[in-house]
């Protein structure tokens, strides 16, 4: 590189660098959480922590960067990072059985972030009331499961009853647990978004 070239280097600002790093780390955490599964009593389906990661992205990073983290997660997965459940990756997963849920993740993170933070400027989520956190998380969950069920109907030709049974009802006990965990973590003051 010549001396004249070096003057054309366009540096990324400090705040933006920090936000990109936070979003990328959260996207990688979503990938790691997708591989963690727990069996829950009285349910045939084990739960992963993937959606808990989406909830926390919306709450801790806010609507813009929480949604951005989910977009990075999907893009990296589509391009080959083994971030989806069972270390799957590729564009094919996006049009597969879980495609609807995946596409809904950024939307859910944005909605959760908007309800929790009120607008795009971030507030300390631990100071938000339980009702507000609950409203955000339930809205996000409804969006994810609605898109997931519609996705199963469109992509795999499930019947409405089949899609709701296999794609939503069996997972609801686990989601209630994750919503409770997300609220407990955020209200515990044990972490603060860097």
């Amino acid at each position, binding site marked *: 590189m010549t001396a004249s070239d070096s003057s054309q280097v366009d540096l990324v600002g400090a705040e933006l660098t920090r936000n990109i790093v936070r979003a990328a780390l959260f996207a*990688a955490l979503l990938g790691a959480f997708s591989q963690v599964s727990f069996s829950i009593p009285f349910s045939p389906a084990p739960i992963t922590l993937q959606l808990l990661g989406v909830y926390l992205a919306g709450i801790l990073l806010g609507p813009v960067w929480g949604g951005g983290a989910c977009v990075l997660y999907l893009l990296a997965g589509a391009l080959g990072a*083994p971030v989806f459940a069972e270390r799957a*990756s590729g564009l094919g997963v996006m049009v597969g059985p879980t495609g609807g849920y995946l596409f809904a993740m950024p939307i859910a993170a944005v909605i959760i972030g908007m309800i929790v933070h009120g607008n795009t400027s971030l507030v300390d989520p631990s100071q938000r009331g339980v009702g507000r956190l609950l409203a955000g998380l339930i809205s996000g969950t409804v969006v994810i499961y609605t898109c997931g069920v519609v996705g199963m109907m469109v992509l*795999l030709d499930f*019947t409405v009853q089949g*899609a709701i049974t296999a794609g939503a009802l069996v997972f609801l006990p686990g989601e209630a647990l994750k919503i409770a965990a997300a609220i407990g*973590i955020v209200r515990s003051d044990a972490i603060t978004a860097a």
Partner: protein
Amino acid sequence: MLSYAPGSSVAHRLDPRTKLFVQIAIAIAAFAHTTPRGLLILTAITGIVLVSADLDPRGVLRELRWLLVLTTMGPVFSVLVFGPPWIDLYRAIDPAMASYRVLCLLLVSVAYVRTTPVRDSRAAIEWFIPGRLGRGLGLGVGLVFRLLPVLLADVSRLRMAIDARAGTQRPLHDRIRRLTLGSLRRLFDRVETLTMALQARCLSWNPTTPPLGFEVIDWPALVLAFGLLGWAVV
């Protein structure tokens, strides 16, 4: 685990934009023609894609077994009827074709994953989405690829540590809370370190990504992609 592996197959030598375009064209055509004849053509194209990537379909199917189980649930749920005769096999035909379509698209996407390094995918993103948005997405995707093994190791170590301290006897919500809190603490510690490291290395909007260029080998693939798109709208 299905991930990039260096090689010299035809698919390895294709431009990443060509491979993405072919994948999208195959998906659009598959959705437009989910008929026995359409699926026969899709099967042939999937076979060509796998051969071009030097992939053994049996090995790929083994890796995708979890998704395959989910994919077959459509036909299984569809044959069940709430009332006599309780089972109606005829209702499984359309879901079975939809499931087979998904299976083919999964195999095609594995060929991309197996033959495309992340730096090429990043360059393709920056070509498809010009400006700072594309650069930012390319940068972010590159970071996710690099950071995923680190975060996986963090979460795995934490889970082992929790289990070693009678974690399996704790209530489930407590185990989830401990694992998530530990993971988030490490994540936010890494934010500081990584931000500083990137700034110290002068993170810029004008990085040097690999040059992209269509070669002669790309033309047949591009013709196939345009042909599939044309077929999809017929």
